Each structure stands twice: as structure tokens, then as C-alpha cells.
């Protein structure tokens, strides 16, 4: 390893600026996609949490000893779409952005050592849907795969011990959300699955407005 020269750093900083602008373009569209999903499910955004690190420090709180990840919280981020009482059942919904599965894909990886992550080419970027009926993921402890790897592709369905609560989750590759058609296909698939597997309370708030009759 050799140190960067001032000239090297000029080039690095240039790429950092490019990376930030790329992230801005990407994240703006991811947020728009989540907004569309919420609209289709008749929900609103009700706050979010970073699943990978802590909340970005602000208002003088936090410490410069915090991880840089704390300032990059959309690495793995939950958009909570609220809780509603439907026919006496508490229905919670969330969409989770997993910008990079690399940390989770490599067993034993350390968060502050990106060399230990799986290679970017072998990792994935995806959106995960999560719905809970009379329960939420915290109730399942280690049974809930919060840190899904790229190989987790199907539906996961968990039941509470007394059978009254159901949790359903599935991750979809970000490529499924390329456009409106793809996003509607995901929504149709997910809602249909939930309705057939114990959560009929989830439904689309309206039919496809551009439906071809």
C-alpha cells in the first residue's frame, strides 16, 4: 500500500463527487418508487429506520467516532408504511431498501471492513416487502431473517406461537422496479400471495387506472 499523492486525491475526490450525484439520482427514484407503492396500497410513509447502522447524527448529537455508515443510512433502510386496523386486525406494512447485500452475503463480514463484504458483482440491490398481521418482526427474534442474503428469494411466512399473528416477507431485485409495469406486477404478485396466505386485509387501493379493456 502506498499513500495517495495530492494529484491522486484530486482524482479520487472527483469520483466521490460523481458517486454522490449518482446516489442522489438513484435514491430519488427509489423514494419515488416507495411513494408509488404506498399510494397503491393506500398507505403513507410513517418514518424509517436504518437496519445497518445507527441514525445519522444531527443537531449536535452523536460523535465523530460514529461509523461513516451512520451518514449513509440508505445502505439498508426501512420505509415504514404505517399500521392500520382492518376488520379488527392490526396490519403493518414496510418496504425495505437493501442497496447492497454484500455485507450479509459473506458470513463473518465486518461492517467497518468492506474488504470482508462479498464482491459487488456477486451482491444484489433490492426492495423487500414486509407485512405483519397482529405481529411485527421484533416478535420473532432470530427466526426473522432481518439480514437476508442475496440467495433469499422466495416468500418467508412466520406465525406467532398462538397462531394469531402472521408475518410475510419477500425481497425483489431492484430490476423488478424498473418502471410502472414491473412495479405493478410485483404489487399484484405480493398482494395476491398475502391474500391467499392469511392476510386478506392487504389490497390495492384501486384497480389499474390505465387498464386495457
Amino acid at each position, binding site marked *: 500500500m502506498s499513500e495517495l499523492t495530492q494529484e491522486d486525491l484530486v482524482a479520487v475526490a472527483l469520483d466521490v463527487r460523481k458517486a454522490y450525484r449518482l446516489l442522489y439520482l438513484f435514491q430519488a427514484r427509489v423514494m419515488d418508487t416507495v411513494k408509488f407503492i404506498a399510494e397503491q396500497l393506500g398507505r403513507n410513509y410513517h418514518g424509517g429506520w436504518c437496519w445497518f447502522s445507527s441514525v445519522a447524527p444531527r443537531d449536535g448529537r452523536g460523535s465523530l467516532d460514529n461509523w461513516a455508515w451512520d451518514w449513509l443510512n440508505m445502505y439498508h433502510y426501512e420505509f415504514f408504511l404505517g399500521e392500520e386496523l382492518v376488520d379488527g386486525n392490526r396490519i403493518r406494512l414496510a418496504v425495505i431498501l437493501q442497496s447492497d447485500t454484500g455485507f450479509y452475503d459473506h458470513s463473518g463480514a465486518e461492517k467497518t471492513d468492506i474488504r470482508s463484504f462479498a464482491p459487488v458483482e456477486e451482491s444484489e440491490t433490492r426492495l423487500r416487502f414486509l407485512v405483519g398481521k397482529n405481529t411485527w418482526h421484533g416478535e420473532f427474534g432470530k427466526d426473522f431473517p432481518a439480514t437476508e442474503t442475496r440467495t433469499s428469494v422466495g416468500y418467508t411466512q412466520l406465525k406467532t406461537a398462538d397462531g394469531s399473528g402472521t408475518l410475510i416477507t419477500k425481497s425483489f431485485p431492484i430490476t423488478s*422496479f424498473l418502471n410502472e409495469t414491473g412495479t405493478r406486477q410485483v404489487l399484484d404478485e405480493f398482494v395476491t400471495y398475502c391474500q391467499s396466505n392469511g392476510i386478506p386485509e392487504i389490497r390495492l387501493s384501486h384497480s389499474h387506472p390505465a387498464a386495457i379493456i
Partner: protein
Amino acid sequence: MLHAIRNNKAGRNFQDAVNWRSLFGASEDSLTSSVFGHLFYLPASLLWEVLCKGAYNLELPCQSPPEIISYEFWPRWDATHTANTYSVEPDVFVRTSEFDLIIEAKRHDYGQQNPKQWRDQVQAYLNEYGCEKNVLLLAVGGIDHGDEQPTHLTFPSRTILVYKCRWRTLLGALRTAQQQLPPDTPHLSHLLKDLIAAFGLHGYATNDWLATMPGSELTRLKQGNGLQTLLSKSSQF
């Protein structure tokens, strides 16, 4: 009201709680009133610009954008010589200094408009207002594939043009107008934002998709030597 419905506030305080968002989202009348109700608040020049861009081949029968004199939702007109028994009810009726405009809206974008209904609406208009003024009909939504060109309705005294428009193309025109607004027009920006939100409430996509990542921007962002330098000099990678 629009915001109360979008945020699931409307309907909560009634004895039998009703999900207004779901009800309104499915309603043709709600879509029509929330979109056109806001459209008429726009300055005439912007209103007609949006309608002309959103509709297929719409040409106004005048040189400059006319001011709106009045607008009315769901007027009831004399049904004489129509298929209706009591009255004919177009969705919106607009009077301008230059011409009158009948708007017939359908909930979805394809396959619901009916030329017989257009004819009845024009006949009912003639029953009410006679032949003094130029009149157009704008069919919004419900347009069959390949039926985007104007339809000519022939009456003994005149021929009426029916122009076509899809909600989705109207939304596109509004989003373009929003992007092109001068920076010193925040009130128009708020109006257009609410208009676009009304489309969102009714299930239309109002967002930028990942497929629309701007190519010109991405080309400029192509990684250069900096990352390569890091790769060669840093053990971090």
C-alpha cells in the same frame, strides 16, 4: 380535502368510519372534479397549454388562449331528441369568450367512451344554448387504441369536433409544465403539485422510475481515474 383524503384523515370522525381514500380513488367523479377543479385555477395560458399538450391534436378555434367565463360540473340539460328521457348530464361544461367546451370523462384510460353519448351531449347543448357559439367536446379517458384522432359529429346545422385525451397524457403535460415553471411562481408550483397529487390519489404514477435515470447525467458521472487510483494504491480493496 384532497390532502385529508390522501393522508387517510377523511372519514375517520364518522360513526361508521369510511375509508375515503379507497372510495375516492375508485371514483370517476372524484377524479374528474379533483383534476378539473384545480385546472380551472390555472392562468388561462397555462390551462390551455396543458390541455393542448395533454390531448391529441387539440386545436383551439382562436388565436390566443381565451379566458374562462364560467365552468359547471354535471349540468343537467334538456334531453329532447336524445336517447335520454329526462336530462343529459355531461361531466363539465366550460364557457369561454371564444367557444364553449363540453368535457366527458371516463375513469380509466381505455375503452369506455361512447360516440352516442357524445352526440346526445352535443344535442342537449344545442337544446340549451342554440347554435350561436362554437362548441367543442373533449373526451377524457376511455379512448380505444387507435382512436386518438378527432371525431366529427355531423348535425343538420353544423359539424362538431370531438377531441380525445387520456388521463395519463394529461398528467404528463402537467408534469412537464411543473418542471418548466419559472422559479418565481411558487403559487403555480403548489397548484400543479396538488393537481399531480390528485392523479396519484386515483392510482396514476406520478413519479420518476428507475428506467428514467438521465443518460446524459450518467455519462458525466462515469467513474474516472480516482477509483482506479484507489484500487491500485489502497489495501482497503
